[in-house]
């Protein structure tokens, strides 16, 4: 346990971490290194194993196999009260029968610190709750309770602070405010923050690095920009924002590009991918595509284009959203930023959806076990 000496920060490493509940595999051989001092997010929908992973780091669950390491120290089987790790719980878990002061000072007192008044005062100031010390949790609003929970954990100067969807119960405006506050606190304090959430916008706002989890495994790891611009699978592409996904077959190599034919349309995908004859999927973000009239002269840069009919035009304030149906029945989405110009097309218009090849990203073929949508080649007879 930290004794208040020089702050030591070690990388948090999960090695082959696995957790099963009976037949159910919650966490499936997780390998992850979370750099010391970073703000790290575990992103995924409910049931993907992120909370279980967090609990194993906190010591509230024992791994079925694998290890949790701080630097070189194996803490996998240490009791929670022996780990330099603190948690901010989703439901805050404030002790209802203790005052705010006593709640915040709880960890310090258990470690034998006698005079907690100053530390508590500083901490309450950090979360902007000075003067609330004598009150009870039941008298505080959700946002205030959340800040007490953060204070209660941070005061112990843990090496790793775990946050289990702490902002879930707050309304939108408060949530945004808290996101920025937490980020600035992490800057100041310097501990490693591991934030578990299902809200992709939250993860992208706050974290330096994000791990997208799916069925107990890490699907992709990277910075918010990496994950958004270069998702490796349909799952990641659709979890972070929206994406058009096109499935085709490789027909040719064109210099540095691969040519993929999708229902008769030839489209260029930068880089070398599958060999000719093999299936290849790729994606394009709606905001990267534009809607052009069929008759317009194609722009040299917008080399990829798919013809279709406009099915819907929606004005959302920030953008105009088009839904274009292709000849093979797929609906593509295009978001045109609201720069003051009129709508480029109207319902029923024949248009071309075009994009620059470098904006497309290849998607790997989904394996049966991890697929969120079945890959076309593996479609089995529907019941």
């Amino acid at each position, binding site marked *: *346990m930290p004794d208040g000496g020089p702050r030591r920060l070690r990388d948090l490493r999960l090695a082959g971490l696995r957790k099963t509940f009976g037949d159910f595999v919650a966490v499936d051989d997780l390998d992850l290194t979370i750099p010391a001092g970073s703000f790290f997010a575990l992103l995924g929908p409910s049931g993907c194993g992120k909370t279980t992973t967090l609990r194993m780091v*906190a*010591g*509230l669950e024992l791994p079925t196999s694998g290890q949790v390491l701080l630097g070189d120290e194996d803490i996998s089987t240490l*009791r*929670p*009260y022996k780990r330099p*790790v*603190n*948690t901010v*719980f989703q*439901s805050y*878990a*404030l*002790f*209802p*029968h203790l005052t705010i002061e006593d709640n915040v000072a*709880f*960890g310090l007192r*258990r*470690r034998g610190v006698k005079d907690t008044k100053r530390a508590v005062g500083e901490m309450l100031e950090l979360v902007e709750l000075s003067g609330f010390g004598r*009150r*009870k*949790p*039941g*008298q505080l609003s959700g946002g205030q309770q959340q800040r007490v929970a953060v204070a*209660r*954990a941070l005061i*112990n100067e843990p090496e790793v602070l775990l946050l289990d969807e702490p902002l879930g119960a707050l309304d939108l405006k408060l949530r945004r405010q808290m996101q920025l506050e937490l980020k600035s606190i992490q800057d100041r304090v310097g501990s490693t923050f591991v934030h578990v959430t299902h809200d992709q916008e939250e993860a992208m706002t706050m974290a330096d690095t994000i791990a997208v989890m799916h069925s107990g495994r890490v699907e992709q790891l990277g910075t918010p920009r990496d994950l958004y611009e270069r998702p490796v699978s349909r799952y990641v592409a659709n979890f972070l924002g929206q994406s058009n996904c096109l499935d085709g077959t490789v027909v040719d190599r064109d210099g540095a590009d691969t040519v993929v034919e999708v229902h008769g349309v030839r489209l260029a995908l930068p880089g070398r991918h599958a060999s000719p004859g093999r299936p290849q999927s790729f994606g394009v973000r709606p905001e990267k595509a534009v809607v052009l009239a069929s008759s317009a002269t194609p722009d040299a840069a917008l080399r990829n284009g798919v013809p279709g009919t406009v099915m819907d035009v929606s004005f959302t304030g920030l953008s105009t959203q088009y839904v274009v149906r292709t000849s093979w029945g797929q609906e593509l989405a295009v978001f045109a930023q609201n720069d003051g110009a009129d709508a480029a097309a109207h319902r029923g218009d024949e248009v071309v959806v075009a994009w620059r090849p470098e904006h497309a990203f290849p998607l790997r073929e989904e394996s049966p076990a991890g697929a969120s949508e079945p890959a076309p080649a593996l479609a089995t007879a529907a019941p």
Partner: protein
Amino acid sequence: MIVRTVRAARKHLVLAFGVLVLLYLFLPVFVVVAFSFNDPAGRFNFSWSGFTLDSWRDPCSVPGMCDSVLLSLQIGVIATLVATLLGTLLAFGLVRHSFRGRAGTSLLVFLPMATPEVVMGASLLTLFVNAGVATGFWTIVIAHILFTVSFVVVTVKARLAGFDSRLEEAAMDLYADEWQTFRRITLPLAAPGIFAGALLAFALSFDDFIITNFNSGNTITFPMYVWGAAQRGVPPEVNVIGTGMFLLALLLVGGAEVVRKARTGASTG
């Protein structure tokens, strides 16, 4: 207009009925309190003859009554302490752990509540008779512990069921080991339930007649005294005790509510 009045009447009809029922529940209590001030003409305190404070001034002037009250208190305290301990342990065991025999254990705990007092009292008597144990103070205590344990378990279980296990996890996350977590978090939060269970046990024990009747031998508890007095003539002093019990209990319930509000700082129940 008519619909509105009908609807209003209907809305308040149920509530009015409810209040009537409450009055009905309180009717005997009013009578008891009123007749504690009665100056009975004969031995039987059944018709009003005159107002007096004599019974209140010196309730123990009636031979044997205050002794019986004291005895009931003694039995109540001992039985409550033991039953609360046993019951709380059982409740923790049943709620916090899932083990194979849990349903069966729950059933066994529940059975005494489903058994008519006559049967329980009678069966205990046969036990004592067959074992050659003379009935008296301690057999009463044993009997009282028996039938109050179940109620303690149910009360504490109800309190524990609403318990947020995250609180104990949070405590351990904040460097409290198992014992400290229990002492500083679990116990204080379970305490109201335990206290309620103890209160219930005491009330049941103090007021018990039927089971006590079977197992008391020559020991006279307060209810036994009243039973005997019913034949001979119930003095108003008995009403004084009854009223006193009522007021004391009200005080305790009110006090418990005040304490609860102070602890959690909550404004509604």
